[in-house]
């Protein structure tokens, strides 16, 4: 009897493995969400992208690959898509290093055991709590192009009038930088908290050992802190890249993609195509293209920045 029971159990174990069954069960809710919110919408977008379809009037026309041709190749309509995609990358190139670096710096500052440190941690995290739309509206006042704008009036004041009013959001070369500065300010608290958690995971013994070896503070940072933060930083870089690729709110509120398309992003083009221009097919086609680009990017990034998972 006992043997028989053992053998059926053994058979099951042989085929699936106890761990695998439990694993599958536990991944079910997550997988379901992924299917519901990523896979199904993606295939819906794929189907919609073959139509000229309007939410507002219910009429639709089959267009085949025409939306893709217009987005990618048409001389009148494709430049803005390529410009937007380029802006996405420029923005990511500005924001990812700056925001990650700043997050490490802030986390190191706030990782001290001092009185009232919780207050400072809360303080630096606060911008993350505010909705981006709110932050953007307030910053639109800071960035106003006349001397009533806070930044212009500040610069004008400290330079005794030598730095004239700058059109922060209306100058093609400057607008995306302005948005990047605001985004870093608004978002850095989130990465900071993650790095802070990472810092606290590094065993104190390592620092003790390092200081016995007469390692300077900088050497400790280079050889203990940074390696200890490796997995955290990989996560932070990936998540910051994702945030910067889906850049939308700030652009929608501050510049509407202007001036001259210099702050337009793929998400901005996609959302305004679908909602403002009522062209759901075009918006869908853009998201399909964008998802494919992001998948390729993620694969590259995963290869380059492989997390160390094994416990040595």
């Amino acid at each position, binding site marked *: 009897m006992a043997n028989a029971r053992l053998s059926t159990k053994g058979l099951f174990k042989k085929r699936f493995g106890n761990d695998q069954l439990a694993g599958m069960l536990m991944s079910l809710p997550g997988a379901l969400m992924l299917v519901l919110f990523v896979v199904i919408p993606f295939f819906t977008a794929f189907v919609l992208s073959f139509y*000229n379809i*309007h*939410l*507002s*009037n*219910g*009429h639709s*026309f089959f*267009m085949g690959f025409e939306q893709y041709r217009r987005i990618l190749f048409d001389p*009148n*309509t494709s430049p803005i898509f390529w410009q937007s995609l380029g802006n996405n990358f420029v923005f990511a190139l500005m924001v990812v290093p700056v925001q990650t670096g700043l997050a490490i710096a802030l986390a190191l500052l706030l990782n001290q055991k001092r009185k009232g440190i919780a207050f400072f941690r809360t303080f630096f995290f606060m911008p993350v709590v505010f909705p981006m*739309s709110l932050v953007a509206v307030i910053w*639109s*006042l800071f960035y*106003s*192009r*006349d*001397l*009533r*704008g806070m930044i212009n009036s500040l610069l004008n004041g400290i330079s005794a009038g030598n730095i004239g009013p700058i059109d922060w959001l*209306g100058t*093609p070369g400057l607008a995306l930088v302005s948005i990047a500065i605001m985004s870093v300010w608004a978002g850095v608290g989130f990465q900071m908290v993650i790095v802070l958690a990472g810092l606290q995971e590094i065993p104190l013994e390592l620092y003790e050992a390092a200081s016995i070896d007469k390692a300077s503070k900088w050497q400790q940072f280079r050889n203990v802190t940074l390696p200890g933060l490796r997995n955290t930083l990989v996560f932070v870089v990936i998540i910051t890249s994702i945030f910067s690729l889906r850049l939308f709110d700030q652009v*929608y*509120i501050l510049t*509407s*993609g*202007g*001036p*001259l*398309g210099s702050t337009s992003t793929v998400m901005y083009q996609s959302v*305004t195509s679908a*909602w*403002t*221009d*009522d*062209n759901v097919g075009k918006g869908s086609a853009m998201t399909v293209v964008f998802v494919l680009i992001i998948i390729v990017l993620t694969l590259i990034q995963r290869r380059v920045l492989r997390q160390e998972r094994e416990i040595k």
Partner: protein
Amino acid sequence: MKNGKRIIALAATAALAVAGLTACSSNGGKQTITVWAMQGQTGEVNAAKQEVAAFNKANPDIKATLKFVPDMGTALKTTKADALPDAFEFDGETLASLVYAGKLAKLNGLVADSSIKNELASIQAEGTYSDGNTYSVSQYDSGLTLWGNKSLLAKAGVSDVPTTVDKAWTADQFTGVLSKIAAVTPGHKAITFKENYNIGGGWAGYAFSPIVNSAGEPLVKDGKAVGSMDAPAVAAAFKTFASWKQYSDPDADDSAFQTKRVALAWIGHWATPAITSSLGADAELIPLPNFGNGTKSGQGSHSWAIGAKSAHQQAAAKFLEFITQDSWINNVTNQNGAVPATNTALAANANYAPGGLLALYAAQLNKSCGSANPTASCVTVPRTISPAWPFINTTFSAAVQSIWDGADPQAALTKAATAIDQDYADNGEYKK
């Protein structure tokens, strides 16, 4: 202006759609109709509540239930025709899209002819679709002009300020006026074009399409934008317009004119209460500058319609007749500063009589160009009455924004016009 409310509106739409279906039922011989009104300014919300209460009192056999919708545009776009309420308020510029979607009932024979015919010619034109039928009525129309600050203009040495449509400044004269004003204001700005309303977000479709018309063209002529929106005269006009940016206060605080930083404001009627309360007798209406084909202006505001699938269209028609009576029109326009939309209400209002503070609004709307191509003698032009309008609006507005930001006017307008023509072609020219 309508940003940020979309998600709420989407959520609200789902709830409202269900409510609209269930509320639309008769109980004990008493008809229940559902009414959706825009969650607009306080004055408009109050007026809607008062109207519905009075209507229910005056019509014991009908019970109207009122719901306020925060983003009506999205709600109407995303609600199916059979889930729409019996009567609803909407942005008049979307009429053609709603008719094309089969969501509006023809009002001819439903709403009394006397009610429809008493509406301003501009409103009647705005409510008429290309099939010749009337689909909407309105309580008020809009006014778009310049507001001038008399004492600041005098200080700048600007004399002969025009206050009637036939005397409008030419664009070149206007450039001179702006530079004179900028010389005497502390921030060296002369005017607010209400850039804070977001030129590229649709403000240009209302506020700056009169520039196209004043240069002698409609936005779209016979279903084609290439050749009209991007005509050389239009591009030249926008070149002048862009040259005025140096005199423009960005107006981030929405009060450049009221706080006397500038002497002119290119703005709609909704600012009237704020402007008259801060400037008093110093404020005057001035026609928009003339780019060659006479001054032109915008028209059209909120409208009211009946759901195409409503089971209580007669009762809903009664409601529309009720709220377009002069007394109720005056009730709402006294609160929101808009132009009364009936001939009788406008004639009885001293503000709009010759010599009155707002006389220019009435004079402009009385010379509506209707849906025909603008001539030199007419003034107000409705936004293109076509299901393509939402696309025309965003595309044209984006072009104006890019011109404002320094793009070549001719190239920007041709690009926009080409995209609009492609949209017409994509949609089978919007023929049913």
